[in-house]
């Protein structure tokens, strides 16, 4: 089961990366970025569920050591928060961009590297 989840996560991650690199519309780029973060979340939660350190499987077990077992899920929660902050900032830049240039096509935004 872990393999399937990891394959799903890898596929999603690659779709996201491809989207970021190929999309011309800034909103689409931000959506693709979200996809990458969520692919990571799937991997984190899957690892959290299926991988338990060997020394936690003994007496006391999962209940005793829940905070180690849940580490991956904890990190996933932080990722969700950070991704939201990232997008909020992205949307602020989108507004700044559209006020100046009247377009959201980022091919139009390349003054440098002439």
């Amino acid at each position, binding site marked *: 089961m872990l393999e399937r989840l990891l394959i799903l996560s890898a596929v999603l*991650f690659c779709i996201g990366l491809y989207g970021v690199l190929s999309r011309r519309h800034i909103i689409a780029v931000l959506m693709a970025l979200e996809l*990458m973060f969520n692919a990571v979340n799937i991997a984190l939660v899957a690892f959290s569920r299926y991988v338990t350190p060997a020394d936690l499987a003994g007496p006391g077990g999962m209940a005793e050591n829940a905070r180690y077992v849940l580490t991956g899920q904890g990190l996933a929660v932080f*990722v969700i928060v950070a991704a939201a902050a*990232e997008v909020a*900032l992205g949307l602020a830049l989108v507004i700044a*961009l559209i006020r100046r240039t009247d377009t959201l096509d980022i091919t139009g*935004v390349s*003054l440098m590297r002439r």
Partner: protein
Amino acid sequence: MGLTLRDLMLVSPELALVVLALAIVLLDLVLERKRFVLAVGVAGLGVPLAAALGLWAVVADGGAEMAFHGALIVDTFALYFKLLIVGILGLLLLASADHIERFRPHQAEFVALVLLSAAGLMLLAGAADLIAVFVSLELASLPVVALVAFGKNDRSIEAGIKYLVLSGVSAAVLLYGFAFLYGATGTVRLVALDPALPTIATMLPAVADGRPFGSTAVLVGVVLATAGFGFKLSMVPFQMWTPDVYEGAPTPVAAFLATASKAAAFAIVLRLFYTALGGASAEWSIMFAVLAAVTMSVGNVVAIAQSNVKRLLGYSAIAQAGYMLIGVAAVAGGGGDPLGVQSVLFYLGGYAAMNLAAFFAVIAITNVTGDDRIEALAGMGRRSPLLALILAFALISLIGIPPTVGFMGKLFLFNAAVSADLAWLAVFGVVNSVVSAYYYMGIVRTMYMREPPELDGPGEPGRIGAPVAAWLAMGVATAGVAVLGVWPAWLLDVAGSAAGALVP
């Protein structure tokens, strides 16, 4: 469980910075004179400075303290970076006093965002598990996105979008790497004071089966994490954003990115690889050696063709990151020798001084001329002899010519490489320094050998001055370059005790 006073004491430098940032935003609402806000910002840096020095005294004998259930570590290694970042911040705020007047009426927000980002960088230097690394990295880079776009002109917004997207991608790649490291080891802890607690290093699969890093999952994790950090370090092949962002961002922000941001990124790379992956040092040492060689070559060769001074400093930052990667690669004696780490720490300190001196001179000049092309620097030797001298001295130090800190820093880096059996890398570094002399000296030649341009607008191409605060910052940075160039021993000692916390 729960928050204790001890935890708060251990993060007091970061806490002081965050409180200072919030206080500045609030003060801005009641104060009429905005200059005062900046003065409060600079004076307030005394608190985190004192806190970091106080903590240094606590852990100076090689001990370490952990805060927040092992999420953060306070040792001399982390504190070295915290002190460095506070120092950079103070000089940067002083030097940009004039520049931030352009952001009226948002000067206070600018200062507050710089402080918040610096708090993230300081946390990053003391992060002891992967969650703390990620959270502090985001805290450090999100304010910088806003700062890069702060110029509100087309270039600045373009640079902001580029930095947002690329730092987002790098964060996602880094996290994917962290996910694999976590999956392979079942823990996110980099260091633990209690040897019974599992850390990544103790849980790593045995390297016995001949695969790099012991297992494919760890290999994938290490490669992805290196790529993610590579963006922050502006390491080839993840350096594409650097020149664009440096050119588009307000110059003080570019200076912040080049010094503070890069220092903290090196801090976490050193900590991750030396503690969590110390057992596999033979494998990642050669990886960093190759990356160092490629990074400095690309940075130096492409810099030759640049005509914009901020863009040139961007490529220079790439090349300098390459030199510092030599020190990361130079693990001798199975990771038991602190020479490589020590040389990186020393170089980061010296690099901050010389790069800030160069950026401050450029800030002072472009504030008046409003033109950041290299040819606009023509005749600067006559228009402003002192600024030209400071810039020339900083550039000579960036090449690595004695008696400057750049020479001493490179000497220690190359020495570390040779003692780690990487003599070819040291040779590579020397050849690259020669190449870099061409474009750095090109600026010096333009300043002293060419006539000032004819002005289209009204007025003579007259003398260029700077406010007292900027002179003070430039004086300190330049003095740092010169003093460390002739008397490097004290910083080397401090760097040595900081490196000792990482490599016992």
